[in-house]
């Protein structure tokens, strides 16, 4: 059992499970973000109430801790494994096989992941940090109460073309990361059964495309709306 926890296979399982958990997290996160498509005061109120719920509800708190832990585990494990596999080939090849035997995304997971980490840091600084520790503007509701106006922060962030572009590029990186990642994780945990290989591939690749594309559509919409 001792060997088990330090084995490459066990570490890969954890990387796969944390990656899959994060993929499910993204689905939830995306559902919340879709509310930004509702315009006017109605959309603003709904989004801000949702943001308040997400920062106060105990169940969400628990899930968010799981998410932070998954990110940490995923990053530490995958970068450690990438470092170890560097060591497994001290002298590289003069001529590279390029992508003649494997996909581009599968060969660049660490670079894509590092870009995603940068995105996560910038993204959390912009919204999570502001919501928790920043000096937030308030929306005054009809019933006289006031509520932190994350809607305003979000919509105005995407007035900035560079910030919007960075977001879109990050979603492209996410798409490429997931294009290899989802299928790979399914294989690692042993569920890529030969009989279901085709449908699994379609599902994995659809997930990899639809999640980032839908995420990216929101800032594009907000940017165009604000023009």
């Amino acid at each position: 059992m001792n060997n088990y926890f330090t084995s490459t296979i066990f570490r890969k399982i954890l990387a796969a499970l944390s990656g899959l958990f994060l993929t499910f997290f993204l689905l939830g996160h995306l559902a919340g973000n879709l509310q930004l498509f509702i315009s006017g005061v109605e959309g603003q109120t709904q989004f801000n109430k949702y943001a308040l719920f997400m920062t106060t509800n105990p169940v969400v708190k628990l899930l968010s801790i799981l998410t932070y832990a998954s990110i940490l585990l995923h990053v530490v494990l995958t970068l450690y494994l990438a470092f170890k596999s560097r060591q497994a080939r001290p002298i590289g090849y003069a001529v590279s096989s390029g992508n003649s035997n494997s996909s581009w995304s599968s060969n660049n997971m660490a670079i894509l992941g590092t870009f995603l980490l940068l995105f996560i840091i910038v993204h959390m600084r912009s919204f999570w940090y502001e919501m928790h520790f920043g000096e937030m503007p308030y929306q005054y509701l009809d019933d006289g109460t006031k509520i932190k106006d994350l809607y305003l922060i979000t919509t105005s962030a995407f007035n900035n073309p560079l910030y919007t572009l960075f977001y879109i590029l990050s979603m492209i990186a996410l798409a490429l990361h997931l294009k290899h990642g989802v299928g790979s994780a399914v294989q690692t945990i042993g569920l890529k059964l030969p009989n279901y290989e085709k449908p699994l591939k379609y599902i994995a690749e659809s997930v990899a495309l639809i999640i980032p594309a839908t995420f990216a559509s929101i800032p594009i919409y907000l940017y165009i709306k604000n023009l």
Partner: protein
Amino acid sequence: MTDLQLTLNIWRQRSSSESGKFESYEVDNLNTHMSFLEMLDVLNENLVEENKEPVAFDHDCREGICGMCSMVINGRPHGPMKGTTTCQLHMRHFKNGDTITIEPWRAKAFPVVKDLVVDRSSFDRIIQSGGYVSVNTGSAPDGNAIPIPKSIAEEAFDAAACIGCGACVASCKNASASLFVSAKISQLSLLPQGQPEKNERVKKMVAQMDEEGFGHCTNTGACQAECPKEISVDYIRKMNVDYNLSNIKG
């Protein structure tokens, strides 16, 4: 039988303790019917005549079954053809005037012995750790005494097609031996004769694989694409499942 003239960029390294470098050679009077190794034989004859050290490379059967002929040809283990070992690769797949770069397998667990020859005894140690079935000696048992479903027999046989060449390691960006190890596990563990030692086998062989310093599998699929016997990565999936289950069971 077209004449062929080539420029070869070959990794030369006198011994494992010295560092190596690429040397360039011109060879002509080749023809397209030659195998890649025969082409190297011509080069070596030329070198011997010039009183130079011939290029050391591994080979034995020259018919695609022993797995010795390890070399990376223009970035591809065993060259550009699918399901083909270097010895079975023919020069008709190259063009007159081509420059071909030839390198040894690159992996920490496969140290270079000389030029293109690498030491693959790490594979032997993995087999020694658990790649066997224990049988009692005595009179030969009836070959058909244990019924085995055809599909299982086929699957085990496909795994047994692995010739232990190491191209999977050479092609993998992580220098992972997962394809080799999983094939060597499956060829025994799928069959009834392999059941008694199934759990111990996968634990020991994976432990030895890690111990030897091979990288982890990131499912790029390069191994399956480059394997001369086209071993399927599904054996890696099976190995993962068996490894996890055998450890959970204790």
